[in-house]
């Protein structure tokens, strides 16, 4: 039996499940991958799940998420009407849209696309079979199975997810859109695994969306490894619009070779319990990483951004800027940790976290933290939390702008500092639109961030007119 229904999530349940399905899980593993899986399992047995006694989990209590019952499938469910789930036409396969449904790669007829320029795009499960050398070279080398219980658990159970490979010197002509949709009749636990490799002098834009389709509860433990080769460029967007019953543990491990450049944008628009583990390692000198975050939370939503940047080589630049607006009883955590190692001279590292609390009951815990073992560096960090500026409110209202509209203008202006950093124009407009809707309380959880709905028959237009907000 590869499926379990309606059980709560415990360390014991998962250990039992793993032992029962050990050979099934590893059926397509090479010897090296099987060994990784096994040792990850051993780690999980040792580590278990994190709890609030651990520093990085002090403010994020998952008890409520664990105590729900979930179905857990170790293989894809029955075929679903993909078009219905994605609400609009899945375009032809030569366009770069790929989808995961409940953690499984959609479009079984073509599980792996090999584009003319050498780019490979598709199911990780299929890539494990077809490209074992590439997989062995990268898979599990950036992820931390040794100390992170969730990541170890993911590696132990990983079957499918997305694989993207951009060979050396190839620049992906259009952004790849990865849509991760959860849609299930019962509560669902899922663990998908993504591997993204951008070669030396290669370039990729990746839009990675986490969306819900209904209000059913879910618990996702997703691990993504990203390798950027020398001089490689990745423009990365993580967009989260999940329902209030969703728990998402998203761990992304970036490894940057020399002179690689990363732009990463984390836009959290909705979600009951969101945890973003962002871990970045400079694996060569002259790397450059900008990590931006925007979270707009209300009700009892919880978002926890943990950003760890390891300056292991000299002459690297990192810049983190996370901004959030919290309403009602929402809660946000920002932990930024920059480690500058002894030999990492000329490191330039910045961390900023800014929050606006709209109510007395919204809360923020912000801890930018620098750990520096080299004298010849430029590092700064800062954190502010406050209300909407009363002077600005008075100024806007004195010009005849109503109180609600004035609040919207100021909130949007605050968020816009992050939104303007999105370099794909259509995406920036789309996100701008979603942010405005979100601030007005009109964003639907099924409103997906994807751009592919814009088919010639139904052009999608966004009326960006601030007078309407």
């Amino acid at each position, binding site marked *: 039996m590869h499926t379990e229904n309606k059980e709560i999530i415990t360390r014991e349940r998962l250990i039992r499940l793993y032992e029962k399905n050990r050979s099934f899980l590893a059926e397509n593993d090479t010897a090296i991958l099987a060994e990784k899986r096994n040792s990850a399992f051993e780690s999980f047995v040792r580590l278990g799940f994190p709890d609030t006694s651990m520093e990085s989990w002090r403010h994020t209590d998952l008890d409520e998420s664990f105590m729900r019952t979930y179905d857990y499938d170790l293989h894809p469910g029955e075929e679903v009407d993909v078009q219905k789930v994605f609400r609009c036409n899945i375009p032809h396969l030569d366009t770069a849209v790929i989808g995961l449904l409940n953690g499984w790669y959609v479009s079984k007829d073509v599980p792996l696309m090999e584009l003319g320029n050498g780019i490979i795009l598709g199911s990780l499960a299929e890539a494990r079979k077809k490209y074992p050398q590439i997989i062995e070279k990268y898979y599990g080398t950036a992820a931390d199975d040794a100390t992170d219980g969730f990541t170890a658990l993911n590696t132990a159970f990983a079957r499918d997810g997305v694989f993207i490979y951009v060979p050396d010197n190839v620049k992906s002509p259009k952004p790849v859109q990865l849509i991760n949709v959860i849609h299930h009749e019962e509560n669902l636990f899922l663990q998908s695994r993504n591997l993204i490799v951008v070669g030396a002098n290669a370039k990729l834009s990746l839009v990675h969306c986490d969306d819900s389709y209904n209000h059913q509860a879910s618990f996702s433990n997703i691990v993504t490894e990203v390798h950027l080769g020398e001089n490689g460029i990745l423009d990365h967007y993580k967009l989260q619009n999940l329902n209030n019953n969703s728990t998402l543990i998203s761990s992304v491990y970036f490894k940057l070779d020399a002179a690689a450049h990363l732009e990463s944008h984390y836009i959290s628009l909705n979600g009951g319990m969101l945890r973003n583990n962002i871990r970045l390692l400079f694996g060569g000198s002259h790397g450059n990483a900008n990590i931006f975050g925007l979270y707009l939370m209300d009700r009892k939503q919880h978002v926890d951004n943990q950003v760890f940047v390891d300056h292991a080589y000299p002459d690297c630049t990192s810049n983190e800027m996370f901004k959030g607006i919290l309403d009602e009883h929402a809660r946000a955590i920002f932990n930024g940790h920059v480690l500058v190692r002894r030999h990492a001279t000329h490191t330039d590292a910045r961390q900023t976290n800014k929050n606006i609390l709209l109510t007395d009951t919204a809360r923020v815990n912000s801890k930018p933290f620098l750990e520096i073992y080299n004298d010849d560096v430029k590092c700064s960090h800062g954190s502010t939390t406050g209300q909407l500026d009363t002077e600005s409110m008075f100024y806007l209202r004195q010009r*005849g*702008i109503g109180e609600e509209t004035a609040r919207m203008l100021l909130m949007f202006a605050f968020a816009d500092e992050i939104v303007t950093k999105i370099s794909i124009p259509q995406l920036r407009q789309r996100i701008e639109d979603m942010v405005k809707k979100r601030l007005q309380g009109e964003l639907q959880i099924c409103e997906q961030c994807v751009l592919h709905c814009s088919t010639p028959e139904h052009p999608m237009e966004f009326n960006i007119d*601030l*007078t309407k907000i």
Partner: protein
Amino acid sequence: MLLQIKNLHAGINGKEILRGVDLEVKKGEVHAIMGPNGTGKSTLASVIAGREVFNVTEGEILYNGKDLQKLSIEDRAREGIFLGFQYPVEIPGVSITNFMRTAVNEVRKFKGLDPLPGGEFLRLMEEKKRLVEITSNLTNRSVNEGFSGGEKKKNEIFQMAMLEPMLAILDETDSGLDIDALRIVANGVNKLRRPDNAFVVITHYQRLLDYIVPDFVHVLFQGKIVKSGGKELALELEEKGYDWIKKEQEA
């Protein structure tokens, strides 16, 4: 009567600043309010505009016969009251274009008018920019962000020109301006003078009144208007200094 202030007492955090102000402004008039620092000039401007940190404890303000205290900040603005800020606020992320379009259209909506079409709005912007000699393309910049003192004040007059208020209160619009910027700001105001609107110009110095010639000059001292006269009062003040007023009051 456009504005009628009767025995106005107001303060902040329990501290009384205005102690019985009386003032009447008719359409077509320009009033100057002068006085030493800390006598309540800016408080008076803020209270008329409805700034919430100030409490009115006694007296009333009538605007076109309506009790202003019953109106929100934005409704006062929509009824035609404009405050030129002494320290215009910087609002990063809000462009002047969007700010003004939102403001103009909210005022229009209040008056039962349709929003101004985009092209017409932009033409209006260009026309009003010329009025205050704004040549740079600061309209696509964030509101007041990184503006020089002179640019900020020009921007206030520009906004006033866009909104065409009935009653404009200019709070020390001349402070921090060099002579050229002062001339531009004053010219802007003079071009906007009409028989059906009025200006209350708050200033510390007589200098501005060489350019914007007032019909009446009032001296505010310790929260009260202690002296009123024609434009010659400003010259007398310039000559004798505020000590003259202080001595008179103490006598």
